[in-house]
């Protein structure tokens, strides 16, 4: 279980991801940003519940919906915001944008524009920590849709056969773009796919930080102890469209409202943490205010930052030194 201090930290991260994404949504709709944005609102408990167990020697690979994973893994907010504005001061010098945020120093080996592609890369990182015996683990975050990709299956088979310290976090938010998960695969619990690879699997309530924290903790512990990989399916929901600008239309208002009203991971955490005597509502409101200020500051600094110079298009293709 978590301490009071950790509980405040957890809430701070949940709130940061939520506010960061909502701010982007607003700015995108106001025409202040360019590109594709796939927002993480609704799924925050997954990234935070998992990354609470990780440190800098652990690796994470992510997907197109990666901002939450980056924030939870400790990537600098200002650098992320500047990247999303395409600025020279961005974490990737403005060359990657939303779907390619990475920070190798933090063990964040990349968001990804190709569905499923991050999964074998996490297995590769698990191979690195295993060969180098660093004691680290590698986690892959991906969606329900990605489990229908070949890269998912090949990577799980390899990780299980080689017993690598990898953890597969499947965020089942019910949809791949506009296609319901049950229309793309014939089972309700995608976690059963682990059985093909004789891999340990678990199902977690992805809207509840505490449940994700517990199940992911079990998987990460097993990996650290050399007991091999696990697949953890987190049942979750995205509150916004697939991307900013998605006309939606593939789900009912009742369904959305039910999740938002009854399952929202922020109030869910708040209620439980207060009941457990870990936090007070006042402390959380102070965090809300701090986070808002921090995000406004990140936006302001991103807006002021310079764009790359046109000649920068030519640099960073090869290692030259």
């Amino acid at each position, binding site marked *: 279980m978590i301490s009071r201090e950790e509980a405040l930290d957890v809430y701070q991260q949940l709130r940061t991801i939520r506010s960061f994404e909502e701010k982007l949504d607003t700015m995108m709709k106001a025409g202040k940003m360019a590109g594709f944005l796939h927002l993480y609102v609704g799924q925050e408990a997954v990234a935070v519940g998992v990354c609470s167990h990780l440190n800098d020697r652990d690796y994470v690979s992510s997907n197109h919906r990666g901002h939450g994973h980056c924030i939870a893994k400790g990537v600098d907010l200002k650098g992320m915001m500047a990247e999303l504005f395409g600025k020279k001061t961005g974490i990737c010098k403005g060359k990657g944008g939303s779907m390619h945020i990475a920070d190798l120093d933090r063990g964040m080996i990349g968001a990804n524009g*190709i569905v499923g592609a991050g999964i074998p*890369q996490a*297995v590769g990182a698990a191979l690195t920590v295993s060969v180098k015996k660093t004691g680290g683990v590698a986690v892959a975050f991906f969606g329900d849709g990605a489990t229908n990709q070949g890269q998912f299956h090949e990577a799980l088979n*390899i990780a299980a056969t080689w017993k690598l310290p990898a953890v597969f976090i499947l965020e089942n938010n019910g949809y791949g773009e506009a296609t319901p998960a049950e229309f793309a695969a014939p089972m309700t619990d995608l976690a059963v796919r682990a059985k093909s690879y004789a891999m340990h699997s678990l199902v977690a309530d992805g809207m509840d930080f505490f449940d994700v924290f517990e199940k992911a903790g079990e998987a990460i512990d097993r990996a650290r102890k050399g007991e091999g990989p696990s697949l953890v399916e987190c049942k979750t929901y995205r509150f916004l469209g697939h991307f900013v600008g998605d006309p939606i239309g593939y789900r009912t208002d009742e369904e959305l409202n039910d999740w938002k009203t009854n399952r929202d991971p922020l109030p869910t955490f708040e209620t439980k943490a207060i009941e457990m005597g870990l936090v007070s509502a006042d402390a959380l409101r102070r965090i809300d205010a701090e986070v808002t200020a921090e995000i406004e500051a990140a936006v302001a600094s991103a807006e002021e930052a310079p764009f790359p110079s046109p000649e920068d298009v030519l640099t960073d293709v090869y290692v030259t030194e």
Partner: protein
Amino acid sequence: MARTLSFTAALNEALHIAMEADDDVIIIGEDVAGGGGRKDQGIEDAWGGPFGATRGLIGKFGPERVRDTPISEMGFLGVAVGAAATGLRPVAEIMFIDFLGVALDPLLNQASKMRYMFGGKARVPLTMRTNVGAGNRASCQHSQALYGMTVAIPGLKTVIPSTPADAKGLLLASIRDDNPVVFCETKSLMNSEGEVPEGDYEIPLGTASVVREGGDVTLVGMGRTVHTALEAADALAEDGLQADVVDLRSLYPLDEATVLASLEKTGRLVVVDEATPYCGIASEIGALCIDKGFDFLNAPVKKVTAPHTPVPFSPVLEDEYMPSQEKIVAAVHEQLGWNT
């Protein structure tokens, strides 16, 4: 001291040296050892790689660093990319370059772009060894020379040696390069032999070599076609024509200076490639001559390539498919005809 070694043995020696010198070098691919997990039955290293190039590595460096994979090219190439980005120096083997059809994403969208996408902060020191080319009756899906495809992807380097000595030096340089390198091994050359220096040496990527000197025409080749060009040079010499033969060795980065210097000397250039004719290295060399060597040209640049067809099986057809000494000589005579 140089000894005579086969292409395969030279590659094997390079891999031993690279693994000895650097613990981060690991080998990953299908049957790179063979008989996996049966050491207790006295079985280990049953194959040593499909062509024997990785033989003896598992015995020396162990199964942690020499990994037989499931038949999952996309999966293990992706694993190698992840391992490279996080501190290992993997040498992954895609048995035949044709199999990139089921494994392209890790090269096309991942390894090649990580450094750029991540603002210059990633290093992906991955070497992808792969077998290319026709001439072994391996037919349509095991004979292609698809390096033009990898050359077209920014962020990758592509190398193709023509001799055992170059194979060793280029492989060592490729493994130690901090960029992803596609290392092409021409299957029809695997058993060919040549003098190979002992010890550790590297041939810098991006340096072509002039393997025969002559002032009348430049013949540019790569991999197997260097040998075809040398045969043609012998035939031309009988007619009193001296050919300069350039072995590109590295397709990206391309040693433009060596090609242009030869063209300046001879005024005529024939490029010989066993890949298909469109959007390939031969066309690229032609464009280079027009763009930067226009003033040197005394005759049109000629491409001697495979036709725009799949690689056929029947020996009669495959022999016709391949660039030949006769086709090169004919191209040179066409150039002479144009000139007079």
